[in-house]
């Protein structure tokens, strides 16, 4: 069963982390990523740029029309996402609970219902 795991935040929140704490925080996240890559359960881990870089693309009269995003206006935006493939929901929840950030912020977990098949 595949899951999408997401972390939310905003520039203010990231700025509030003392610079001195960053190396340790990154090391904890790297260790997490490595641990679950090695069990064959973490398919990918991605960090997003700041929300000011998000764009909205529409098509108007057949031509692309690009404006500033994000689509939804909220206080916090998705900051990073992780793709998991594990044997059960219990296991996905256990991995989410092992995320370094779970001490401070919730980790959001969505089951993936559908995945397009690609010919190998």
């Amino acid at each position, binding site marked *: *069963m*595949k899951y999408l795991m997401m972390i939310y935040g905003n520039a203010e929140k990231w700025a509030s982390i003392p610079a001195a704490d960053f190396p340790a925080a990154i090391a904890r996240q790297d260790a997490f990523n490595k641990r679950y*890559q*090695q*069990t*064959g*359960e973490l*398919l990918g881990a991605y960090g997003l740029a700041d929300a000011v870089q998000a764009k909205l693309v529409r098509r108007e009269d057949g031509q692309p029309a690009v404006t500033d995003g994000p689509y939804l206006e909220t206080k916090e935006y998705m900051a990073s996402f992780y793709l998991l*493939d*594990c*044997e059960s929901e219990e296991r996905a929840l256990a991995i989410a609970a092992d995320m370094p950030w779970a001490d401070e912020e919730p980790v959001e977990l969505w*089951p*993936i*219902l*559908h*995945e*397009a*098949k690609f010919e*190998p």
Partner: protein
Amino acid sequence: MTGADSRTEDLLRELAPQVLGALVRRHGQFHLCEDATQEALLAAATQWQANGPPDHPRAWLNTVATRRLLDLMRAEASRQEREDRVAAATPQSELLSAPADEPPLDSDDSLALLFGCCHPGLSVPSQIALTLRAVGGLTTAQIAAAFGVPEATMAQRISRAKQDIRASGPDLTVPAEPERTQRLRSVLHVLYLIFNEGYTTTSGEDLTAPALSQEAIRLTRWLHRLLPSDSEVTGLLALMLLTDARRAARTLPDGSLVPLAEQDRGIWDRQLISEGTALITAALPVGRPGPYQLQAAIAAVHDEAATMADTDWRQILSLYDILVAIAPNPFTTVNRAVAVAMVHGPAAGLDIIAGLAADKRMSRHHRLIATQAHLLELSGDTSAAAASYREAARYATSLPERRYLSLQAQRLSPRA
């Protein structure tokens, strides 16, 4: 793939566990033997397809795999001593030419291999991946594609499993009783999961990925040949055949689901049904029936009914009564509730569902809610049934199931 290619592939996959099993018995070191066998299989796939298989395919693979194993062991520089042991243990003739007569199939080697791949120290996904590669002879790329994960991820799972087997101590042997029975249970569970992954993919558009189901059936047939008197192995094989017999009727060309009651029974595979029925009929009277035999017997009763209405629900219910007693499981109870409803009326079935729904995890499972919807509809309460179908759709874990459940909700909702 041409006929010759697929014949070569079938032959290689048949020989894979025999070659690996013999290598492990002689040299130990499962992780290196597995790599060596995999490389020999890849070499064979290219050479045999170009020139046709050699006269003694198994001996050819044994020779190439043993040579490759020696290379791998040499590469582990600090293991000089062990290399000498291998060289001493390997008859020189084996390194040079094929034996004049094919050695008989050594079933203990193959069994030890299968038991090792389903070692309880491994996670279930690792057991599945390793079984498909070491026993099924599939490549890492094929297994990765079947499960829809990147090849690197699958390679990681397999290498992790091999490390864990290495750490778990002695080389692969068939364990003594009572561990043997327990280990055989996890072997059967792994084969069942592989079959199910092919039959009801838990995610994705395509509800039937036949390749994995066929592979599970092939491996279970093979296990049944090795252990012909084990009635649970026979039961599992029968269950797979009796379930697979309905494959063509189970989905429409557009991929949408057809429930048992509405399936075109004329396109059920009669040959699979008679084979499965014969297997389960022979197995049931032998000893105490296990859960796979009981599930196969239930499938056989469904498969022999000409219509849903002709189904012998009393017999199905009595089989579920035994199954619930010997292998309690909430999903078995959900299925039993349907049988109870067919024999004693929908209200009796709904009572059982209500009892299960007290467990919060079950109460959110789409199968429980969908069954509740079905029984509510049978009881004539269409608006409650529609609401339950809508709720079930929200908790569905695959797209075809979600579509099917949404359609049921629409069918029962008054037109706006």
